[in-house]
């Protein structure tokens, strides 16, 4: 199967999945989305194996790495700034902002923790000191 045909198939599956999930949400049906997503992912994985062309290589990973770093820094700085601002506003008479502020701050803490663990793991894997 060519990569072009796979992309068309992927688009079709995503559209059908989107329609199914949107419809089930509108109907208040919580039983359709998860199986639908599982079936869609399974179909895409099965057909992806039939694509013989190389579609991802070291350059792709290099780009993804750089993009991830930018996203991490932008989200991190933005979330800290916004979260602390909302916490301050929440103390001065707008309590609903406290919930959003705490969510943002805890989210960035969790992200930093995951990053630290992953960094430590890969540092050791690639010959760094423990």
């Amino acid at each position, binding site marked *: 199967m060519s990569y072009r045909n796979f992309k068309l198939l992927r688009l079709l599956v995503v559209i059908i999945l989107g329609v199914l999930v949107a419809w089930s949400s509108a109907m208040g049906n919580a039983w359709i989305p998860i199986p639908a997503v599982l079936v869609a992912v399974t179909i895409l994985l099965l057909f992806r194996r039939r694509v013989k*062309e*190389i579609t*991802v*290589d*070291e*350059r792709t990973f290099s780009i993804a790495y750089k993009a991830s770093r930018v996203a991490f820094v932008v989200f991190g700085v933005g979330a800290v700034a916004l979260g602390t601002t909302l916490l301050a506003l929440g103390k001065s008479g707008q309590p609903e902002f406290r919930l959003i502020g705490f969510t943002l701050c805890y989210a960035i803490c969790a992200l930093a923790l995951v990053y630290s663990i992953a960094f430590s793991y890969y540092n050791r894997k690639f010959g760094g000191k423990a």
Partner: protein
Amino acid sequence: MPRINNRIRRLRFDHSEMTQEELAARAGCTRQTIIALEQGKYVPSVELAFRIARTFGVKLEEVFQYEE
């Protein structure tokens, strides 16, 4: 600033006008990576550099040149 040049495009034409797609398939990378290499926008890993050189049947230095 150090710069790595390459002669990939020249070598492709010298090898029976090999297409970018053929070179990508034989070197184990995407055609977009070959395009980026020929345009000087991407520096390959040592492994990919060796695979490209091996595809052309030449030494690494004949494909990539390091300029300071």
